[in-house]
């Protein structure tokens, strides 16, 4: 019976403190009855292996003890969806705030490394935010369980609920392959389009950041001997116009994420414009040229050729991706229009 005592001791470890003696006493009586029953059936005492078999069948001590506890949650299923939504909103607002701060810092000519440090401090801020929101909701859940708040509120909401006050059906019904455009995706696009426009408008710190990202610390040097070739200057105004159009579309999508057809059409048009721009640039062999008056120009000719080659193939790759993006937009647009036309009336 030493094995039984050891088993009961192991179960006791995981039981709620106030009930340990009572539960173990009862469990012990039941297991002893089961063992005696088996012994009566066999007409002899159980050997260690048979006893171990009974205890194994009864279950692991941790699992057995857990069945005596009430299920406990930090945040229960009633509040969890709301908790998760609030968490996503707060983190999105923080990400946007940090993004804007980074752009402002760049515009104010702060050192690039200082700006990058500010951006990376976002990761440090996420953890305490995550912890605080979780603590607040854990306390709310505790109050909810103790005072049955949700039960009372649900009753009140049900009494006040009037289906006639529900908002009108959106222009494109859900479930037809036309989900609203993700706001976080739009914020992401808006941020990068704005950053590109600032770079294009020759906001120096943004240019430095772009050089840092592509060339590493060498890009921060004032002695970079390359500059954009003449083809880029002819495209200055069209690029600004396409960027402004894209930013306009992104702002509209941010306000009305359910304007899916508008989103696909606008993206199709801006991508088509981008393709024309890509075509104009790819035809040129001088994407970057040496800054006039560079000393020892001959020694830079080979690096310049390699950089131009890399840029050339990068632009071809970019054009390919844009074509795929156009096809995707056309396919989605057709699907939305077709399904909408054939969808049964709701």
């Amino acid at each position: 019976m030493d094995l039984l005592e050891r088993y009961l001791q192991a179960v006791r470890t995981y039981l709620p403190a106030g009930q340990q003696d009572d539960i173990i006493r009862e469990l012990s009586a039941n297991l002893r009855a089961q063992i005696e029953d088996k012994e009566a059936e066999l007409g002899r005492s159980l050997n260690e292996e048979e006893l171990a078999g009974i205890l194994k069948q009864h279950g692991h001590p941790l699992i057995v003890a857990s069945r005596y506890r009430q299920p406990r949650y930090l945040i229960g299923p009633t509040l969890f969806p709301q908790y998760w939504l609030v968490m996503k909103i707060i983190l999105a607002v923080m990400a946007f705030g940090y993004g804007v701060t980074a752009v402002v810092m760049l515009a104010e000519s702060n050192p690039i490394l200082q700006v990058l440090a500010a951006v990376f401090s976002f990761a440090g801020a996420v953890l305490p935010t995550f912890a605080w929101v979780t603590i607040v909701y854990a306390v709310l859940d505790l109050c909810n369980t103790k005072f049955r708040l949700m039960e009372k509120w649900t009753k009140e909401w049900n009494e006040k609920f009037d289906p006639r006050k529900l908002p009108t059906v959106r222009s494109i019904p859900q479930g037809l392959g036309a989900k609203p455009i993700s706001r976080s995706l739009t914020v992401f696009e808006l941020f990068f389009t704005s950053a590109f426009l600032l770079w294009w408008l020759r906001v120096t710190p943004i240019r430095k950041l772009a050089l840092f990202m592509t060339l590493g610390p060498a890009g921060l040097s004032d002695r970079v001997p390359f500059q954009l070739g003449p083809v880029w200057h002819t495209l200055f105004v069209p690029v600004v116009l396409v960027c402004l159009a894209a930013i306009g579309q992104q702002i509209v999508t941010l306000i009305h994420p359910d304007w899916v057809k508008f989103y696909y059409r606008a993206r199709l048009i801006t991508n088509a414009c981008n393709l024309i721009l890509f075509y104009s640039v790819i035809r040129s062999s001088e994407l970057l040229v040496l800054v006039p008056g560079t000393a020892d120009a001959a020694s830079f000719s080979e690096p310049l050729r390699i950089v131009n080659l890399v840029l050339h193939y990068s632009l071809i790759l970019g054009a390919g991706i844009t074509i795929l993006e156009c096809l995707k937009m056309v396919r989605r647009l057709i699907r939305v229009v077709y399904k909408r036309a054939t969808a049964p009336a709701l």
Partner: protein
Amino acid sequence: MVTTIHSELFENLRLELRRGSLIIAVLAQLRTEHYGYALRKALADRGMEIEESTLYPLLRRLESQGLLVSEWREEDKRNKRFYRLSENGTLILKELLEEWQNMNSSLNRIV
């Protein structure tokens, strides 16, 4: 893979279906007094197998809800905790049985 998912899904649904039925079976069986292990055997003899680690905590929960009463008593020179249906438990069992029979009739008409 598909078979595994299928059997897991079936097992989850089966457990969900059994959960409520087990309570009715336990309450009904405890119209006669039993201690834990004897109750498990009695249920198994009638085709309702139930794990000890599920049954024993369930008995304590039903007692804390006022549906069962228990007392420690000696039997075969050993102290055991005997459970039986309380007055409130008897009323609840009656209502549960009616509900179960109504549901059963409806299901029979549907399937």
